[in-house]
């Protein structure tokens, strides 16, 4: 015993096993979940959609790499979060947006919103949402020039209003079946509620997200539509509700941790979305709703702190 046969063993604190799920695995699952919507985007808008996504992904990864290099921080592109931001940002853009504008959006998302605040986990708002909003207010015309689905394009009508645009003007909107399937105008990744739902179900099955936020968000939109005498199915399938509720409001970093907090967050997103759609000057309100709730998240987290087991409510000091 005095002469140990095996010295210099690795000593670390328990536990000595970890779950196979790590950050890049989670991000990879999100990318997989976005594939059905990508396929629909190409089906509806053609190969330009794929090009736009590719440019956004490349730009986001490049900006992440370059910022961390310049700031002398460890490289994090391997965690795939920049890829996710790139895909989601591109999904929020009209398929025909000039590529350089998309790159500006990627710069805002990755450099200004994500890396300057400390990188993954530190950003106060969802980078893709912030990127989209900056593009929306900077290039208002380009960002609201919606290509029609390829099948509906004619020689003299390449673009048209989105269903929400038609709705805002009181015009006739597409049928609910068309809206659900997604052969409508709009941002390239948001059009197909069906494809986004498939992705959402995948994420829930893989336990990447909990259904709380999407259910509360979409549920609130539907209830608000009913209460105001509108068609709930139209409002749920139109615009960015599905994309926002499933893929952007569920961003871990900028949403609350506890179930109670998630309920508040989801309902808040739904309420704000509908208030903007029905009473404000913009036809669509998903991104502003999520941005506002992102900013409220630290306060929601603080208000919904968990109670320790066995300690009566109000009894903890």
């Amino acid at each position, binding site marked *: 015993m005095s002469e140990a046969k*095996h010295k210099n063993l*690795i*000593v*670390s604190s*328990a536990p000595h*096993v970890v779950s196979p799920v790590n950050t890049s695995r989670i991000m990879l699952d999100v990318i997989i979940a976005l594939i059905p919507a990508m396929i629909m985007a190409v089906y509806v808008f053609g190969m330009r959609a794929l090009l736009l996504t590719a440019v956004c992904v490349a730009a986001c990864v490049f900006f992440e790499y370059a910022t961390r290099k310049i700031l002398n921080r460890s490289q994090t592109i391997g965690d795939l979060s920049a890829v996710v931001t790139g895909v989601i940002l591109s999904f929020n853009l009209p398929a025909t947006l000039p590529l350089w504008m998309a790159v500006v959006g990627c710069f805002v998302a990755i450099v200004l919103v994500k890396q300057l605040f400390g990188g993954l*986990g530190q950003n106060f708002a969802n980078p893709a949402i912030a990127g989209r909003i900056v593009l929306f207010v900077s290039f208002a015309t380009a960002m609201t020039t919606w290509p029609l689905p390829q099948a509906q394009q004619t020689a003299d009508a390449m673009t048209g209003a989105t269903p929400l645009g038609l709705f805002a003007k009181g015009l006739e909107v597409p049928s609910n079946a068309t809206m659900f399937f997604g052969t409508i105008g709009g941002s390239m990744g948001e059009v197909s509620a069906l494809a986004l739902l498939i992705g959402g179900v995948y994420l829930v099955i893989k336990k990447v997200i909990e259904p709380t936020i999407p259910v509360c968000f979409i549920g609130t939109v539907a209830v608000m539509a009913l209460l105001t005498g509108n068609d709930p199915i139209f409002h749920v399938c139109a615009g960015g509700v599905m994309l926002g509720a499933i893929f952007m409001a569920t961003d871990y*970093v900028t949403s609350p941790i506890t179930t109670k907090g998630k309920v508040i967050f989801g309902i808040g997103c739904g309420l704000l979305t509908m208030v903007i759609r029905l009473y404000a000057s913009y036809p669509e309100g998903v991104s502003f709703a999520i941005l506002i709730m992102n900013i409220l998240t630290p306060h929601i987290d603080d208000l919904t702190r968990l109670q320790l*087991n*066995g300690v009566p409510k109000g009894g903890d000091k």
Partner: protein
Amino acid sequence: MSSVQKHLKGIHVDHCKNTAGMPIVPIPVPEKVYIPMSQHIGAPCQPTVAVGDHVKVGQVIGDNEAPMCAPIHASVSGDVAAIEKRMTAMGRVDTVIVIASDGKQEPAETVVPPVVTNKEEFLKAVRASGMVGLGGAAFPTHIKYNPRNPESVDTLVVNGAECEPYITVDHQTMVESAQEIMDGMKHIMHFLNLKKGIIGIETNKPDAIAKFKELFAGSPELEVNELQQQYPQGAERVLIYESTGKHLIAGKLPADVGVIISNVSTVLKIEQFLKTGMPLISKSLTVDGNVIKDPKNIEVPIGTPISDIVEFCGGYTGEPKKILMGGPMMGKALPNDDAAIIKGNNAILAFDGAFAQINPETACINCGRCVRACPMNLMPTAIHKAYEHKDLEALKKYHATSCMECGCCTYVCPARKQLSFINKLAKTFVMTEGGKK
């Protein structure tokens, strides 16, 4: 427990119970045993023998007048070869009595069944047996069995959950010695005046559950609590909740919620002491891990060096890089393989470099997996962030001291943060008021 009651949170870890069903075999008497004087929580023992003395199995070789202490006995017969300072498996330098075995295993004259007719004599016997909590905490049992509030303690909870991966020795003990465990429960309940006895067993041990159900058929005061398969069902606070519905908060003792809780092997060893008078001189444990040639369940004299045990199990099949005393969730990593078995040991696991690899930490993404895993309903990520800022107020607000270090948070963290370890540091930080005390 009632069916409407909620279960506590936890995690699902691969069981890896490779040694399930393997009988507990005694290992040959080692040439030398190395018995540390501090194997329990409390005052260390003082050696009561000198170098050169001849000792017999079961003879007291270390004791201390202090109340918080359990005596230590010779596990082999032979001569005291040395009394020296050595690094022990407890991770500190301690006085160790080295006994060179004569191979005869002669029992000491003092080993006779104790006369026990009342609570006082029972507690004296438990102390004399050198018993400490064998589930791992090594709290002297005679102190635990003598709560300040005996009138309000009415339940004995026996821990047969064995929720740690790899370890199967408690399972095997239950299968092999169910009758004795039941007799032990009855004796403990009789002398401590407890009305109810509950043995908690995870449902991945159906043979043990069936055995106890059959044995308990004529004893309405005894009950089997079938626990869902989830880590950490065997943690004291979790098992008490799952058995009685009562929450044990930090700083309170099980007796404060009317419970005395013991591991199955503690109950068995107490029963064996009452029957034979042979004190706690050996420990059964699981030997496993991906570099152990023949994983086994074994019974070893306390003080046996790990290297002897590994040799008995066929040696290493590859270069060990991590050796654990205990399970992979809460076990201690040892710096080398020359430590010796102590009372609170229930497994020796040896792993290769691939297993031992420590994953680099990445940024917290606020996913909340740790919060959803914590059986205590803590928010490990918030505690981690508060500790990084050395924010004493926030650490108190988030109840950092209520952590039981089960490791669930670290296990699930996708950013590979050492949350459980940070919480351990945070606890000390709070208890010393930020290092000022």
